[in-house]
């Protein structure tokens, strides 16, 4: 059973790597079409910029942390059969709660993060309860709550003068105060990592995100609670028949999903380098959780790598300007996800192939336990995917 699971993981990684390579190829073709003179250098900067300096590397980690959280949020809901398109609203409310506790109430950073978690959880709870009690499609409710969250946060911020930058000596009124002047204790600690990497962006948020991803992995894979949630996702009727409280699980799943996105918002805006700007458009970080979750095949561990990868090529994409629009990176990511939709098919074929392979070996000789090399592979492949960017 274990071998089968691991070889499935290996196939998933392989399929993702294939889509990434094809995505980069299409990106390269676009670079050639739009500006042939810079194409090779452009591809080079997409692939290598993230490791070119410790500052850029710190930026990769800095952006990856909230991406992991929103990716986990979407992925967790996917695992339980829900499509949480509302991660961006939960992210916004989480960011707001973190900033209110940081600036208005002058709390330390960990209190702010808990507040962010609660804010996101509340914003996930409402679509969850609407789905469970009234059977309102969670996609439409979360779309509504994205906008409601954004407008509510903007309305509240405009009526909380202490929150805005101009109350703390800065000149602009359209954004929240910089934490460095308002409340330095609300900034997530850097533990000397900023000096290690010579970058202001670096703090412990990436480790917080990874620890949470591991916790989510344990909940989903090793706990009865996670099993029940997944069972509801696979087949609601069967799980009800088996005595699982499906309604409770829908609500809990949306609450956890919202909490994860909320922490993401908290992590990003408590870094000390970001200020929340009052605009009327939804934040992209929440929507980017969807591609991260899809690329990571909704698995918490896969999401860590997917977020690192997407953050990595986004940092590379910023270096494309001004020769190209940095949105070429979004095209590459879109192509990768489009292909990963196919890869479910490819995976089935590969899966059948490898499954019959291992079962044959098992049948021939049980004593030697030959499938050892197979489980070793996923661990190898995942880092090489990252190293591949190193060159």
């Amino acid at each position, binding site marked *: 059973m274990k071998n089968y699971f691991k070889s499935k993981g290996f196939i998933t990684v392989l399929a993702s790597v294939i889509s990434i390579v094809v995505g980069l190829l299409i990106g390269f073709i676009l670079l050639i079409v*739009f500006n042939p003179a810079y194409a090779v250098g452009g591809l080079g900067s997409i692939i290598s910029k993230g490791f070119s300096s410790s500052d850029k590397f710190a930026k990769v980690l800095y952006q990856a942390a909230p991406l992991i959280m929103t990716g986990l949020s979407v992925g967790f809901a996917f695992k339980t059969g829900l499509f949480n398109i509302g991660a961006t609203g939960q992210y916004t409310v989480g960011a707001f709660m973190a900033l209110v506790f940081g600036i208005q109430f002058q709390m330390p950073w960990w209190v702010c993060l808990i507040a962010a978690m609660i804010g996101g959880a509340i914003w996930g709870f409402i679509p969850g309860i609407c789905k469970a009690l009234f059977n309102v499609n969670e996609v439409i409710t979360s779309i509504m709550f994205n906008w*409601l969250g954004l*407008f*509510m946060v*903007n309305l509240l911020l405009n009526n909380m003068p202490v929150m805005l930058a101009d109350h703390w000596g800065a000149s602009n009124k359209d954004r929240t105060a910089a934490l460095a002047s308002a409340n330095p204790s609300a900034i997530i600690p850097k533990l000397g990592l900023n000096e290690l990497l010579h970058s202001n962006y670096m703090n412990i948020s990436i480790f917080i995100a990874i620890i949470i991803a591991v916790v989510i992995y344990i909940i989903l894979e090793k706990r009865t609670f996670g099993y029940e949630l997944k069972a509801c996702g696979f087949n609601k009727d069967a799980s009800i028949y088996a005595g699982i409280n499906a309604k409770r699980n829908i609500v809990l799943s949306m609450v956890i999903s919202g909490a994860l996105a909320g922490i993401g918002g908290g992590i990003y805006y408590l870094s000390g380098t970001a200020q929340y700007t009052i605009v009327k458009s939804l934040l992209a970080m929440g929507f980017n959780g969807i*591609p991260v979750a899809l690329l990571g095949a909704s698995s918490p561990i896969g999401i860590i790598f997917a977020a690192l990868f997407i953050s990595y090529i986004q940092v590379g994409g910023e270096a494309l300007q001004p020769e190209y629009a940095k949105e070429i990176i*979004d095209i590459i990511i879109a192509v990768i996800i*489009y292909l990963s939709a*196919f890869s479910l098919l490819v995976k089935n074929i590969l899966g059948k192939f490898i499954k019959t392979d291992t079962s044959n070996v098992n049948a021939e000789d049980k004593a030697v336990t030959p499938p050892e090399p197979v489980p070793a592979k996923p661990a190898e492949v995942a880092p090489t995917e990252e190293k591949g960017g190193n060159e």
Partner: protein
Amino acid sequence: MSWTSILADIIGATILFAVPLLLVALGGMFSERSGVINIALEGIMIVGALCSCLTLVGLDKSGFGASHPQLGMFIAILVAAASGAVFSLLLAFASINLRADQTIGGTALNMLAPAFAIVLTWAVQGQGQTTILIPTWTRITQENFGIEKADTFFQNLIFKSFYLTTIVAVILFICAYVLMYKTRFGLRLRSCGEHPQAADSVGINVFKMRYAGVIISGCLGGIGGLAFTVAAGSGFQSSVAGYGFLALAVMIFGNWKPFTILGASLFFALFKIIGSYSDSIPFLPSFESVNSSEYIYLMLPYVVTMIVLILTSKKSRAPKAEGIPYDKGTR
């Protein structure tokens, strides 16, 4: 301003913003009732708006637009429909032929479209020029009909906020209803969304029907994109401000049926417009002690929609087979 002209403004603006919602939600209806979840509506709108706006600019530069304004607009509508249809083929191919997850394919297209629009706008207009301006001749003016300007109710209504897309939307709405409920094609399409195995067993080609559903949604989505861009009024900036997702909500709100979708889109647009006219409507509270009270009115349509959805949820019924790739082996 007299109250009649305010009333005309409100009705006109409501229709102006209801048109894109109506068109796109109808598009979503065709796709979903054939059994394909079309979350890519936002992306389809963007592609339709991009191609048609580029066409309008091209017509403007060649001088054709200024001499034949409404014909030029009609060409742009055709381009919007065609480009939306072509883009939707990507969704159809992934979700019908390759039986991929429809949400994943749609999300990828939603990401692809704005990025592609920005890259192409840069390439066409030069670096940093992210707005495609719409020529002014696209408006329907008094001169088109040879009548004099006057401050009457109907002139305020029609010449302030009606475009050719408004008329096309009315015609397409009637066509959509007839096609869905009064033709053999519509019946077959609906059967593919409810029980494709049964449809296949009586000789209906499920793949063809689903392709038709997605392509129709691409056409309507593309035109909806153009309709949104003319309504927004500030030119095309590689975005349709979430209207594709809103249309999805309107479609679910409208219970996957044309007339309720029409009602839902008018309802939503009305509540959206009330906010922007809150100063001119005497009986609405103005929240003077609150800063930026416009956000209260911006939230209004979403809150009202949520309440209506909760109240009517018992009747909501999605097509049974939507989102499930059709596999002949399951017959």
